[in-house]
């Protein structure tokens, strides 16, 4: 089985390919998949993601699964490859993490908007929760190329759910690790170490990817310090390409107007201070009363 292009329209900025699985290896609690994806790696940027189909055209799981792009290699030995890091969460990711080398999997990408890069060489702190660190190393390299000093903070519940500690040491000027249970690094949350780190490095931008709770607290910390947070969110997605309207969340625009925006299209990276975090609670997100088109108070 070799990779095959299904759709690649000129100027679309996204391709649909039947990718070939080049490798699938264990990394702690996760699987690291390398996929041959012609036309995708060439146009991807850190923070963008790919949407994979589960099984073939007869699978009973119809919806695509989204994964941050960990790395791309536009011109490897096997052609352009895309790498992702997958946690087996439910039935779809269980099936994807079992894919063997040589298997075929439908991939769409790159999707969404990536992390915006600062125009000045300001110090940056990159925060990854669990597999959320996957896109950060590639981002770190690009920031360092622009002269930005880079600190990486990795946090997870337990040591085996940390991803990329060794890689972080290679690409960053400093690395801090936290775990909830203290099985690696400092015991506690990434938000516990951030204020000191911001003070020490004089960071101008925080970049984050991980669970919503983590993104919310880092956005609050950024605001407290008068700096910007760019966070890559994770909302349940059915298509990943902007056609289903399931992945929406309340985000304010530059005029302060809140709309329910598609996180697969306008995100997944948002400015932390624009996300209406207070709308999220206990696994639900309610439409803020001031959002455009919000339901009127009941009669």
């Amino acid at each position, binding site marked *: 089985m070799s990779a095959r292009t299904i*759709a690649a329209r000129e100027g679309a900025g996204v391709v649909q390919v039947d990718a070939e699985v080049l490798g699938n290896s264990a990394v702690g609690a996760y699987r690291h998949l390398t996929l041959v994806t012609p036309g995708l790696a060439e146009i991807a940027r850190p923070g963008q993601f790919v949407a994979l189909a589960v099984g073939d055209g007869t699978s009973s799981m119809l919806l695509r699964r989204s994964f941050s792009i960990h790395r791309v290699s536009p011109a490897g030995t096997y052609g352009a490859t895309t790498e992702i890091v997958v946690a087996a969460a439910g039935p779809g990711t269980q099936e994807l993490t079992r894919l063997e080398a040589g298997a075929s999997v439908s991939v769409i990408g790159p999707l969404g908007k990536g992390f915006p890069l600062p125009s000045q060489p300001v110090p940056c702190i990159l925060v990854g929760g669990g597999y959320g660190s996957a896109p950060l190393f590639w981002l770190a390299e690009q920031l360092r190329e622009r002269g930005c000093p880079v600190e990486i903070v990795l946090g997870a519940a337990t040591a085996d759910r940390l991803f990329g500690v060794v890689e972080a040491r290679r690409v960053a000027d400093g690395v801090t690790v936290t775990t909830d249970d203290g099985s690696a690094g400092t015991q506690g949350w990434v938000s516990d170490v951030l204020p000191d780190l911001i003070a020490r490095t004089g960071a101008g931008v925080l970049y984050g990817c991980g669970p919503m709770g983590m993104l919310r607290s880092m956005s609050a910390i950024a605001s407290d310090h008068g700096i910007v947070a760019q966070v890559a969110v994770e909302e349940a997605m059915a298509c990943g390409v902007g056609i289903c309207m399931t992945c929406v969340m309340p985000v304010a625009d530059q005029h302060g107007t809140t709309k329910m925006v598609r996180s697969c299209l306008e995100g997944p990276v948002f400015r932390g201070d624009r996300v209406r975090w207070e709308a999220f609670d206990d696994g639900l997100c309610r439409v803020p009363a001031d959002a455009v088109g919000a339901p009127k108070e009941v009669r």
Partner: protein
Amino acid sequence: MTAATPPSSVDMSVDLAGVRLPNPMMTASGCAANGREMHRFIDVAQLGAFVTKSVKAQPVSGRGTPRMAETPSGMLNSIGLQGPGVQAFVEEDLAWLHSIGARVVVSIAGSTASEFANVARAVVRSRYASAVAAIEVNISCPNVANRGLVFACDPASSHKVMTLVREEVPRGLPMLAKLSPDVTDIVEIADTVLKAGAHGLTMINTTLGVAIDVDRLRPHLIAATGGLSGPAIRPMAVRAVWQVAGAMRAGRIKTAPIVGAGGVRTGRDALELVAAGASAIQVGTAAFNDPTAPERVGRELEQLIAERGFTRLSDVTGIAHERFTP
């Protein structure tokens, strides 16, 4: 790039109540946004028609999340008709579809019968009206005046909506009524909307379901109930088309073209609906799996029809009724 279609031996064109479409393939409302996103994968102007997301008079935020749950061979959704309102829809979305030369079926919605009519008026009087191939009236939305019961489940409300919309729609522009399968007798509703002036029927919208999150032991969707779609509902769609086409053929209700929707993922699925009586086909949920599906299914359907020795799609429409002896 999508493979070039080989020169066809099958006439795939469709007469949709007087409007000629080059092929039967359509998107399904709410499953292709308003075109731009899908246009990155296929040329939506090549489809028989592009069906837009149901639009109301004013902007609608839709519901909170989770809005969807995956279910076996399908999904539940409770988007809540999120949309920009008809004015922005016309200026941004219809304008764009017009600019690429798409044939557009505009899906309209409302909380009251007069809202439907107002939305229809704004669309047909807009400067992009020439792109509109038909109006699809999504009567499967809650009727504020009737305790939120969906119009499509009540013949009198359905009749009122269609009557008011018909007054706004110019002659020659077909008006399709989109029916809900969640009724005791779909033939009765079909009869009602055709008597009220509908020129065609789209069948089916989603059917109501609930999924429980067994970890949290509460409904998965923020709205509790959602619409079930995807291959899981295909037999219901084939049944609805079968019953209504059967009633038309028996002369029990007025004859009108049927647009089949519900669970179409492959050419074979489309052929089932065609043989049951559909003249055109919409592909909805399957596009979330494969955004090229509306175009791919058309190619597959054409191939299957050719393999069976037919030269015209219209010769296959409803053929299962001829080959069935009760």
